[in-house]
């Protein structure tokens, strides 16, 4: 009797939620799930006014959160914005539907060079439309670094990977991004090895390099360094370009005398792409394509880049981008630096597990 009523209640609840889902799938709606602070404030409103579509815009703050939802399925979103290295695995898991390029008249606006790099994540460019891209590099507190080492190698990974250099900054706080695969790639590349190699010897070499500088690292985290750089709690950090610019701007706004700068090390680093994809259970597929087409418009792409200081993938937007952004080699790197950039390849499950385990142990200092 009890079990029966339990089943009945569950069924009723299910029925209610299914019908609620059905009601949401009316036309002229669009549900977007994007990173927080990652779009010009009027983009959505302008799109809605232009097309008559009613857009619901939600935000997340980590790839992991997004992926947890996507792998569970039934997110209710029509467009999501993972980083391409994450999307690579999600495509293999069957999360996304192929794009209908006949509905994307602005598709030709995309930078062929970026599409080629992106194809390493999304073979044949079937699922992903690049939104914005950036790099992984080094941010530092100008005064504190100069004060401790006037001739600091501020164009190189030596800042981090030379124990005698990083030791000078241990007292003012060093933070490293908590992204195992990227940290292996960066170290292997610095050592002259293939960044994407999953060979045991190469991974051991990378871990030994990290171990040699582990004592000088205050913490490993993927978002804390933004705040801590801006307030002066730490003075040196590996981080994603956009986050580091945010720290730079936050410090300037706070007027606390903290001055931050960011550079892409000359030895090479990772380049990443945040891309749009349509989940396979999306309900408003037409509207999603309309929005994708809208973001590939040069004017819209320029507006987004000008607002949040990230490079976009639409070359024809360049003339409309503010000088201080397009001339900033940390946002739009020179051809020479660009040649040394490589993508973040997550690797197969066994490699990923080995990397994550070795990285967790390194962090704990065991």
């Amino acid at each position: 009797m009890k079990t029966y009523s339990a089943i009945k209640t569950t069924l009723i609840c299910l029925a209610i939620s299914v019908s609620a889902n059905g009601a949401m799938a009316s036309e002229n709606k669009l549900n977007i799930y994007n990173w927080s602070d990652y779009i010009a404030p009027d983009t959505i409103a302008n799109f809605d006014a232009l097309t008559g579509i009613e857009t619901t815009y939600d935000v997340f703050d980590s790839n992991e959160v997004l992926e947890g939802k996507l792998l569970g399925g039934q997110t209710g979103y029509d467009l999501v914005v993972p980083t391409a290295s994450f999307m690579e695995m999600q495509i293999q898991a069957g999360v996304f539907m192929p794009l209908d390029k006949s509905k994307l008249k602005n598709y030709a606006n995309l930078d062929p060079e970026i599409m080629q790099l992106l194809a390493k994540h999304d073979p044949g460019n079937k699922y992903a439309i690049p939104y914005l891209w950036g790099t992984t590099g080094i941010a530092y507190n100008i005064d504190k670094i100069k004060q401790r080492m006037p001739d600091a190698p501020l164009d190189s990974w030596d800042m981090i990977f030379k124990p005698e250099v990083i030791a000078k900054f241990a007292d003012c706080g060093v933070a490293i991004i908590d992204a195992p695969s990227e940290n292996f790639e960066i170290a292997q590349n610095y050592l002259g090895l293939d960044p994407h190699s999953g060979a045991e010897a190469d991974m051991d070499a990378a871990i030994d390099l990290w171990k040699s500088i582990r004592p000088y690292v205050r913490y490993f985290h993927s978002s804390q360094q933004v705040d801590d750089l801006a307030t002066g709690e730490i003075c040196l950090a590996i981080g994603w370009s956009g986050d580091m610019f945010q720290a730079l701007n936050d410090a300037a706004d706070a007027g606390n005398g903290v001055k931050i700068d960011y550079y892409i090390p000359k030895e090479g680093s990772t380049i990443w792409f945040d891309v749009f994809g349509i989940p396979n259970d999306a309900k408003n597929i037409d509207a999603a394509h309309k929005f994708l087409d809208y973001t590939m418009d040069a004017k819209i792409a320029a507006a987004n880049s000008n607002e949040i200081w990230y490079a976009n993938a639409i070359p024809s937007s360049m003339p409309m981008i503010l000088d201080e952004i397009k001339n900033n080699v940390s946002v739009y790197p020179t051809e020479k630096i660009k040649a040394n950039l490589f993508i973040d390849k997550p690797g197969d499950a066994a490699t990923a597990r080995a990397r994550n385990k070795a990285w967790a142990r390194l962090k704990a200092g065991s």
Partner: protein
Amino acid sequence: MKKPLSNKINWFKGVLLGVPSLWLAVFLFLPLMLILKMSFAEAILAQPPFTALLNWGEGLLPELNISFFSYALLIEDNYYIGALLQSLTLATIATSCTLLIALPMVLAMIKMPNKWQNIFLILVILPFWTSFLIRVYSWKILLRNDGFINQILLYFGLINDPLPMLYSQFAVLIGIVYSYLPFMILPLFAGLKKLDYALVEAAEDLGAKPLTIFFRVILPLIYPSIIAGIILVFIPATGEFVIPDLLGGSDSLLIGKLIWIEFFNNRDWPTASAIALILLILFALPLLILNKFTRKSQKWQDLV
């Protein structure tokens, strides 16, 4: 006349038992079974990212698909066991600290007039009115190098350079003790409030010293409340993820973080489930034992 009444009572009893049973079935038993099922699957790149337990093939009966990969992984080396031990150590220290802080606070509250007791009880509960996340975050502001505590210490010349307190085990300990203190105070207060003060007075009359009274009269009587407090603090402290993530450094590898790594970095929901399940079993066993103890002491109380 007699029969309908008992029927009514039976009906009422049924509702009284049925509602919580249904609740437990849907929100405890069912999810638990899902986790159990998932822990015997294998991680794959799919949606959902693990293999199905039952394979409905050609035959009449489905093929059973059980993998012990996740459990084998857990005992393969000291990676997971080490993290568990670290978490248990931290939780033990944190629980001891909360108990040592809460006991004198509650003893003082009990001695106060009723009006003041109520005010202090409200003060204990008051922090719950703001989000837990914000309260932990504010510790960051207090503990950082240019934070309030360092500035005071520097001002009074107690230290010459700021003490690096944030991102350490010490900060995590403060965070846990602070966050879980009310969960220790409330059961202790309830226990002491019920305590028959005449027993304490009798002990005093017979010439017992305060410490003797505390250890031989008060402690045995409020024993169940202390155990309740310990359970309420120790269990969430062991699996705590948010506080170490916000306040902790990188020198500790705790079990909560390992579950996170399995789930998000390794995309291995089965292993994450297996860890969670083992944690649950590890907690359930001592809990059952403790429960027996409390019952015994209660029986003993009834006899007295």
